[in-house]
């Protein structure tokens, strides 16, 4: 069905990103209302888009009046609609949370912060919605540029991590572009749907194989898949606290989406599991990533660095789920993407709140939260339990579906890998709990403010509620995924 909704979804944050510097130049106080208003609007429109796509089939929009194989097409189908909703809602919450933090740590850079965040969200939306491989590259780079700057916006230590992120990210994007070049040379098209039809004829060519390897490598760097995660721990550790909830929750998930789109929609399940068996390789990589990420997290003193390694571990689990080759595994992987988006936003949100009030950055420092931040601690406990996989949180159901998918695929190694990861995750979060409760309270330091600001409390509350609600409503979400997301060929 033709509809201008996909273009509209991109236009809302993009125009807000342009309007903010113009308006903010005269009155800086207006930046935040404009950004939040645009994101509320975006969330509503993306929910409408998802429900339309689920009930009436995919919505597509042709740019410039050129029909798809030649022109650029944007599509909302089940997968892109679902991710669009996740991106817009979580980034809205992350920006609500960022309000007080921005004023404290980026006081002179309020305008760039909001403008770049919205540009980032617009680019992520563009990546999710586009039906054209080259268009995806352009949005990948716009989004990456925005996130490099968001990592380095505070200056100092974070600048070098941002610079390294930029160097590695550019290598990733270049590899992706090279892969697209191979595909284009072999099929003569860039449109995803058209390429899916033409690829079966040329699957035996070495150019397609090489192109796919380049694309997978490039996207793996962008999504921080072990062993190509080198930029991730430093970038997440030193990025300003106001940016990390947004960066950690959605930015790595969207290159993952691009991989899923290319592997399962363009190549198709049958090809990637038998003819060009990259899923086997990625399954192993995912399992190792999940275990090594969780293992490295155990040894981190810095709270944000621990969470960064936990992100590496989650990305491995998700990759493992997608590579199982069963419907449940795929759906479980996608469910875990949604769950991890909420959990990482909440955990980095807690880290931001702790550093805002007490300047706490290490795991031991978190003990200070015991004094007068009970609600923040509650959010920390619930999201940590969800990461470990305790029912009825979203993390439990995500891991449950992954294990069921692995059993269906009779891949017992994957089952073991998921369980070991859960145990290691439990180890580092229980170590954190032990530091917070079992040890002597730390000497009192003067807090920055006595009472946690309302936006932080509210956003953490909403995220925690979301984690539990996603867990309780997991049947509903899984039903939606099974009904309208799962690609053909399983």
């Amino acid at each position: 069905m033709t509809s201008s909704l996909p273009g509209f979804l991109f236009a809302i944050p993009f125009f807000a990103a342009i309007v903010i510097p113009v308006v903010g130049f005269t009155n800086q106080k207006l930046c935040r209302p404009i950004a939040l208003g645009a994101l509320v609007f975006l969330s509503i429109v993306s929910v409408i888009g998802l429900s339309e796509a689920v009930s009436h089939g995919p919505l597509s929009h042709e740019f410039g009046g050129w029909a798809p194989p030649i022109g650029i097409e944007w599509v909302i189908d089940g997968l892109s609609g679902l991710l669009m909703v996740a991106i817009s809602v979580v980034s809205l919450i992350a920006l609500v949370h960022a309000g007080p933090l921005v004023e404290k740590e980026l006081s002179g850079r309020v305008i760039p912060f909001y403008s770049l965040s919205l540009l980032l969200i617009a680019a992520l939306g563009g990546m999710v919605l586009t039906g054209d491989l080259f268009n995806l590259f352009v949005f990948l780079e716009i989004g990456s540029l925005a996130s490099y700057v968001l990592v380095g916006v505070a200056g100092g230590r974070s600048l070098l991590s941002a610079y390294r992120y930029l160097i590695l990210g550019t290598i990733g994007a270049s590899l992706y572009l090279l892969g697209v070049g191979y595909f284009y040379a072999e099929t003569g098209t860039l449109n995803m749907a058209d390429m899916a039809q033409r690829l079966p004829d040329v699957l035996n060519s070495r150019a397609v194989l090489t192109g796919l390897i380049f694309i997978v490598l490039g996207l793996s760097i962008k999504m921080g898949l072990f062993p190509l995660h080198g930029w991730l721990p430093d970038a997440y550790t030193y990025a300003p606290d106001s940016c990390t909830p947004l960066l950690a929750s959605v930015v790595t998930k969207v290159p993952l989406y691009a991989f899923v789109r290319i592997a399962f929609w363009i190549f198709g399940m049958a090809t990637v599991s038998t003819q060009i068996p990259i899923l086997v390789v990625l399954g192993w990589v995912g399992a190792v990533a999940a275990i090594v990420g969780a293992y490295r997290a155990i040894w981190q003193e810095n709270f944000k660095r621990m969470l960064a390694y936990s992100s590496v571990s989650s990305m491995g689990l998700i990759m493992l789920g997608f590579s199982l080759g069963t419907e449940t595994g795929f759906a479980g992987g996608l469910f875990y993407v949604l769950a991890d988006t909420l959990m990482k936003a909440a955990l980095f949100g807690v880290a931001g709140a702790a550093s805002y009030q007490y300047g706490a950055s290490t795991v031991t420092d978190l003990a200070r939260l015991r004094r007068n931040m009970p609600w923040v601690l509650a959010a920390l406990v619930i999201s940590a339990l969800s990461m470990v996989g305790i029912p009825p949180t979203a993390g439990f159901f995500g891991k449950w579906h992954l294990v069921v998918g692995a059993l269906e695929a009779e891949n017992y190694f994957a089952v073991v890998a998921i369980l070991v990861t859960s145990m290691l995750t439990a180890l580092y979060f229980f170590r954190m709990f032990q530091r917070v409760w079992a040890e002597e309270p730390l000497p009192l330091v003067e807090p920055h403010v006595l009472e946690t600001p309302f936006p932080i409390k509210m956003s953490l509350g909403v995220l925690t509620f979301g984690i539990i609600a996603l867990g309780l409503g997991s049947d509903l979400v899984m039903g939606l995924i099974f009904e309208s997301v799962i690609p053909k060929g399983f």
Partner: protein
Amino acid sequence: MADILLYRPHFVAFIILFLLGMYIMVVSLNLVKKLIGMYIMQTSIILFFITLAVKKGSTIPILLPSVTALTPEAYANPLPHVLMLTAIVVGVSTLGVSLAMVIALYREYNTLEEDQILEKMK
């Protein structure tokens, strides 16, 4: 291997450029040299795309009003050129952002060598 050198010598050149760029990016400790490597790498990809458009005996893809019978074989493929125009813009903006970061790093640490910056951070 031999027939690649014989019929596609330009591909060999692009591979050398790509690897050279990547090598400079990885090995060099100077922040600006890394960016030079990055740009060489991006350029090799741009050249690769451009050569995809070439056809033997074709002309520039401009449709003159005097031409009535359309023969696609007679024109070079314009799409890779257009794509690379976009890719050049992307590359330039990446370079702009990275140079801005390098300037900010230089102001803070007074050096462009990565190892010296790391030492000063301690």
